[in-house]
């Protein structure tokens, strides 16, 4: 072994480190999709169809259900007015049933609220929330956020009851960025005056696009006469058309720029907007991102070379070490346990008794019993106060007479 080589190696290894952080463009390792419909009722059939068709597309391109958060406020498939029960179609030709037999809705009905949406993005959820309903992203995750519903200038209505503001959305994204919860986000929104919704965003690494400008409506594409309502919005329709025709599988090299270039006023009947300025590298870098970076599940797999036999040897060595370690640990434990036993055999039994006792005493208890005395005192104070007020009132009354 050459001495000089040995000495140089660490220097070399170390040498690349600092520059690494700057030079190597960190790739993303997982893809997530947050697909939100915000309106309910039968005449908003098209909004659910919008979301479901995007859901179908991202699933087709390989994002697993565990990484898709689907929010559907209503169930069109089971609506009594649906002439085709159990199905949802986004096209009058009714070729593809979007509801199918393999659909996983994460938030449904009245669970679709502004609060739940913001909780989802910021992951401020309780312990009881299952993993499938959480956005478990990290700094290597690309996220597609697609929203549709009825909106206006800088707001999007949720279920006719509340609305999310452009500021709320921007703050939620900022919290995600602060906690390193995304690598890049593609934000798409199909609603009236949609472009105002992304105007307030201020966190980096976001590409945003919307269907219509301020004071412009976003129109539906066509209605199905048998279903009786419009089945899809124009903006989503032409997005889908591009995705179906140009992006056939995950190996597609179409870029986000190509997708955005396909939007025209003639097709969409409103001015679709795009926002690049949050993206490092501006329009050029943003446009060069692949469509599958957001709509597909890109995995940079590492193929193993041929089998290496050293592995097995390693394993054998391992087992031996473990045997030795275990033996040693067991012996030590035995010694220490022996010592403890000889020292204090009685407390142990006491402990057992105690645990038994604590097990027995299971009666209803308040969830938190901190400040118990204060609570009782303040309640007493309130009662006494009321009594005094009453007394005073009845004392003042005869005094008047």
């Amino acid at each position, binding site marked *: *072994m050459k*001495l000089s080589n*040995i*000495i140089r*190696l*660490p*220097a*070399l*290894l*170390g040498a*690349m*480190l600092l520059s*690494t*952080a700057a*030079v190597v463009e*960190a790739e993303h*390792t*997982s893809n997530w999709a947050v697909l939100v419909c915000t309106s309910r009722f039968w005449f908003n059939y098209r909004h659910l169809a919008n979301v479901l068709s995007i859901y179908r597309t991202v*699933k*087709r391109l*390989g994002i*697993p*259900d565990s990484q898709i958060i689907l929010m559907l406020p209503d169930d069109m498939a089971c609506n009594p007015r649906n002439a085709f029960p159990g199905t949802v179609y986004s096209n009058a030709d009714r070729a593809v049933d979007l509801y199918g037999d*393999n659909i996983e809705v994460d938030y449904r009905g009245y669970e679709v609220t*502004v*609060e739940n949406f913001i*909780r989802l993005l*910021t992951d*401020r959820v*309780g312990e009881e929330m299952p*993993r*499938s309903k959480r956005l478990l992203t*990290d700094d290597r995750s690309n996220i597609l956020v697609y929203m549709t519903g009825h909106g206006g200038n800088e707001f999007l209505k949720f279920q006719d009851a509340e609305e999310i*503001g452009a*500021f*709320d959305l921007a703050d939620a994204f*900022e*919290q995600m960025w*602060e906690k*390193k919860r995304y690598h890049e986000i593609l934000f798409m929104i199909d609603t009236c005056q949609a472009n105002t919704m992304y105007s307030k965003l201020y966190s980096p690494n976001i590409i945003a696009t919307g269907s219509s400008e301020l004071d412009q409506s976003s129109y539906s594409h066509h209605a199905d006469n048998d279903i009786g309502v419009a089945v899809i919005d124009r903006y989503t329709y032409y997005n889908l058309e591009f995705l179906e025709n140009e992006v056939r*599988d*995950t190996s597609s090299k179409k870029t986000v720029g190509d997708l955005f270039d396909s939007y025209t006023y003639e097709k969409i009947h409103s001015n679709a907007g795009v926002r690049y300025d949050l993206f490092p590298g501006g329009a050029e870098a943003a446009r060069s991102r692949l469509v599958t970076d957001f709509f597909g*599940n*890109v995995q940079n*797999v*590492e*193929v*193993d*070379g*041929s089998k290496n036999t050293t*592995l097995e040897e390693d*394993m054998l*060595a*391992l*087992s031996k*070490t*473990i045997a030795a370690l*275990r033996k040693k640990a067991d012996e030590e434990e035995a010694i220490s346990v022996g010592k403890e036993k000889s020292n204090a055999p009685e407390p142990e039994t006491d402990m057992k008794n105690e645990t038994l006792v604590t097990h027995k005493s299971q009666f209803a208890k308040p969830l938190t019993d901190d400040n118990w005395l204060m609570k009782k005192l303040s309640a007493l104070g309130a009662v006494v106060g009321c009594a005094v007020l009453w007394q005073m*009132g009845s004392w003042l009354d005869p005094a*008047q007479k």
Partner: protein
Amino acid sequence: MTARRSTDHGAAGDTLSSDTQTATLTSTSTPMATPLEPATAATSSTLEEPPPEKLSDVRRRIWVIVSFWLIVLLLGLPIWWKTTTIHRANLPLKEMLDWADGKACRPVFPLRISIQANSLQEQEAQNLLRLTQHALDDLNDFSGHHLRLQLSSPAAAQKQKDEPDTALTIRLLPGEAVTATLDPYEPVLDITYPPNAAPSATSASSTLATYVAGQLRSTFAEEQAIISYLLSSNSIPSDYRPQGLTPEAAESLAKRTTRSLKYAPTYHLTFSLFTSGPLPSSWDIEAAIQDYMKPVLDLLSPIHNFTIDTQVQLYASPGVQNQVLSKDDLSSFINAAEWPLSPSIGGAPTVNFIVFVGNQTIALSSQQDQDAVAEGGLNTSQSWLIPQWGTVYLLSLPHDTAHVSVDALKQPLLTFTSHLLSLTGTPNSGSLPLRLSTLSRIRSADLLLRASSTLGSLARLALALKSISIPSSVADGVSKTIVHLRRACETLGEAEGLEHARIAEAEAERAFFEKSMVGQLYFPDEHKVAVYLPLLGPVAVPLVMGLLNELKAWRKRRREAAEKRKAKKKE
């Protein structure tokens, strides 16, 4: 005037208003009696003035208005203030930001390395130690990662070995040539040397010392590289200054960080057997895990816990049907839409290990892979690793195999085991015990940095979002985090350090993701007006008007009184 007053007092409806109502009644009753008298005079154009109010009535009215205002100011305002202010617990913002910027803690990993030189004289050994330490210090350009040598006497050798904080033991043995081998079972580096290479007690330089130093450096090179990569990518200032760059090494390091899973105290391992037909329908997975994976899981147990479940899926079609799979096909091989791969059991992240029974093969096409083929002599491969996700192994079996035996599972399981090590972020070089102790140091540095950056995020968030509430549980979490971070920082490189870093990270996460720190964060001013105006407007109008009227009346009375006084003086 009286009518208006009676309505607005009536609305209040407590004891106070009941006296005022009687008051207004009496005051109205007096003018009611009078109109009859000047009925004849009403024909004249001048309107009849009501008789002057009684002084006691005026005084009572003033009291009424004053008491209403007092209630509003002393009771209403504080209640409104109290109920609408956002509770923001005090956070030690500066300290939190210091942690995030790396000012609060300089991560230092002092590694103790003991040298056993039984065959050397005490003084010779001391000299060798001194020289080696010098050589090490000269080589070292990263002060955060410091190797400190110590001599262990033969008698204390056994005891020394038991000390957990000795990272490596060097055994110096006389031999024929200078060689170095890592003991595969223990963190021990055996170095042999020819008799003439040992330095005398007085010599000022020694090739053996340089050699030992070089060996040590190369043994810890990967750990050092990884740790300083971690520090630099978290923008912790370190005095580590590189001179050049090898792209391959940089790439491999970046790849390593992308590949490894985020630290979690528990991982859930899912072993799945997928087959495209009805067979095989059972496998000896439990025995295979016991034989080929359990030992490694046991070794990792101080750092991670593992839970395991297994499944068999028949008639599972892969995402790609080609007989020969290219590298591009592999990424879409997993049929994510149909294969049930995310059990979401418990709160632990899942690592997937898939055995797919079929005769598909992987074609290695890229140049790099071709080289590997040339070396290994095989032109296909059976398995691939998906970063942060798991491993797929293609197992080809005879068609009529109904049961997969332990032997058939040996190769897949061994592959899974080695992939599990790289998924958990274990470094590649060195002997296994050394790799594991390195892993625990890397993980504690990683956790320390993550907890610090979470603190920084929370602090910046608290500063940026003025309207977000900060419950006191968050402040508790932050202070706990800081305490444990401080302890972790002091004990970095020891087993205790990992434990503290783990607690700190968990607490920081809990503080950041505090459930109640949500809600509608932003209210535009128009919204506030829209909320308050319908409520407070109708209440405020009579209050303000009553006050203004009374002020006007009071000024009028004063002026009249002054005029009267003047008139009296003139007289």
